[in-house]
């Protein structure tokens, strides 16, 4: 099984009527345009909404631009500093999860792909079965288990399940890639007298940067946005992650419409910024994740 992450190849345009104007072509472009509007306009609308006064929002002129940009909404949203606390918590939880997933999954993936032992495929199967199990199924028991362990309402209670649910796909992607590394490399390393840990650390890991990037992207998108566990296991204000934080902010400030809009924009902002920078990597990573899953 080789690592065949589907690539957005250079487009092979199969247009018989290239360069000629035709009715079909224009209809097709109208369809594309409509889809662009439906997919992006709600987000743009939110941005405009977040810069309006309450009166403008309630007046019913939804297309109108705000008379003057209400940056006040953003200072309302940022006031109290919750936003940055939530952001920091999300960063912390996501990055710790990411590091743990990469370490654990690359170790296991390496063993599955390169060691000669009987149970390699059996172990891989265990992870595959796990991929079919819905996270929600573990919500209640984990809640009880964590309560008994006394780690409810800590970041650990989020990182542990996040880690567990991201490892199967990570093991799968990384071991798939590591299988494609030519054997000559490690044979020569053995001749040079390197042990397995050296081979893992100095050879396998550096070569496997592409699948590890894919794993990072998948973990980032999934964990950064996770809401249900975050809202169930953590209640302390200072520990909330961004999605839950956005939710609590919105429920608290239910009449400051502009402020809510501003907080929603701020909540979406980190992911959107990263998407602007890494759009192609992210789309590739998400497809690779889907195809492997």
């Amino acid at each position: 099984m080789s690592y065949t992450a589907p690539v957005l190849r250079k487009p092979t345009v199969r247009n018989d009527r290239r360069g000629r104007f035709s009715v079909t072509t224009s209809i097709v472009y109208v369809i594309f345009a409509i889809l662009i509007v439906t997919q992006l306009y709600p987000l743009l609308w939110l941005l405009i909404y977040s810069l309006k006064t309450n009166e403008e929002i309630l007046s019913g002129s939804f297309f109108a631009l705000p008379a003057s940009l209400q940056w006040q909404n953003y200072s309302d949203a940022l006031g109290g500093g919750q936003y940055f606390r939530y952001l920091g918590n999300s960063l912390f939880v996501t990055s710790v999860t990411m590091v743990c997933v990469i370490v654990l999954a690359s170790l296991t993936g390496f063993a599955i792909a390169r060691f000669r032992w009987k149970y390699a495929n059996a172990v891989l199967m265990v992870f595959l079965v796990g991929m079919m199990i819905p996270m929600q199924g573990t919500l209640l028991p984990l809640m009880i288990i964590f309560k008994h362990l006394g780690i409810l309402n800590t970041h650990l209670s989020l990182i542990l399940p996040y880690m567990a649910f991201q490892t199967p796909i990570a093991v799968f992607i990384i071991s798939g890639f590591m299988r494609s590394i030519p054997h000559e490399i490690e044979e020569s390393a053995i001749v040079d007298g390197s042990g397995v840990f050296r081979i893992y650390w100095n050879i396998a890991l550096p070569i496997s940067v592409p699948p590890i990037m894919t794993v990072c992207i998948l973990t980032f998108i999934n964990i950064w946005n996770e809401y249900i566990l975050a809202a169930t296991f953590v209640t302390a204000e200072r520990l909330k992650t961004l999605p839950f934080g956005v939710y609590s902010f919105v429920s608290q400030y239910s009449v400051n419409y502009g402020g809510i809009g501003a907080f929603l924009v701020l909540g979406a902002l980190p992911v959107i910024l990263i998407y602007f920078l890494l759009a192609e990597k992210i789309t590739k990573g998400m497809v690779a994740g889907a195809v492997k899953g």
Partner: protein
Amino acid sequence: MNVLRVSGWKIAAFVLPCLIIYSLLVFVPILVSFYSGLLDWNGIGDAKFIGLKNFEKMLTNDSIFWPAVGRTLLLAGVSMGVQLPIALCVAILISRYVRKPNFLVSSYFLPVILSVVVIGQLWKTIYNPASMGGMLNQILESLGLQSWTHSWLTEPKIAIYSVIVVALWQYLGYHILIQFTGIQNIPSDIYEAAKIDGASGLKADRYITLPLIVPIFKISVVLSFIGSLQSFDLIMVMTGGGPAHATEVVASLMYNMSFLSMKYGYGSAIASFLVILCLVATIIINGLFSKLDKRYS
């Protein structure tokens, strides 16, 4: 063939940390959940073992359970029957008519990566009554369609459809992307050969694209089906299952039973049902598609 001969303890050092953490956090809780499904327990006090009574009540004597299952399947059905065909058509059109598709595909994909909380709140705002700044009702009013305005999320008959629209909207771009990538990976010489044989346009789509896209389409089907079974965060953010259980799906019912009604044992029974449903669905879908694969190869 793997070449590294490694002693047992080294294998253990590589594999066990991950395997143990994984089993403890995924398989053990699932087993615990199956067991708690047999209890009459509020999650805090004493638990009483009642055998299969929870399951019996769930399947035969719960007026909320089957409608919730129905809504879950409705979401899955709409997602597979409406969203995926649209996505496939769009993907085919993009691959045929657009020379630089990356911008288009990336734009369609943008809602996918946003948090469900942001998406849910955004659409709640859109669905708000016109007097509270809701865009949809304001548009309808300005078009003179007052009679079409609704309070989209609080009318029991409409609410579930309002939520489903959002779910379809958010993930459309994901399926477009997946299927577009699949079409891109079909070697273009096949199309050139077909053109010489006189098959281009729709004919080429019917006899080349469709059969060759089956494996990728399967991924979309599995994702949308499993995703629908688990869809839950969007419901929790937008309606919480209300009004009066009108938007309850299996997962939200499990949550509400356990945490709002404090029927932890009963909630666990529902959770077990959900896990089994997911496993069975995955197996069935895989089985169906392996038949389809054989037919076309």
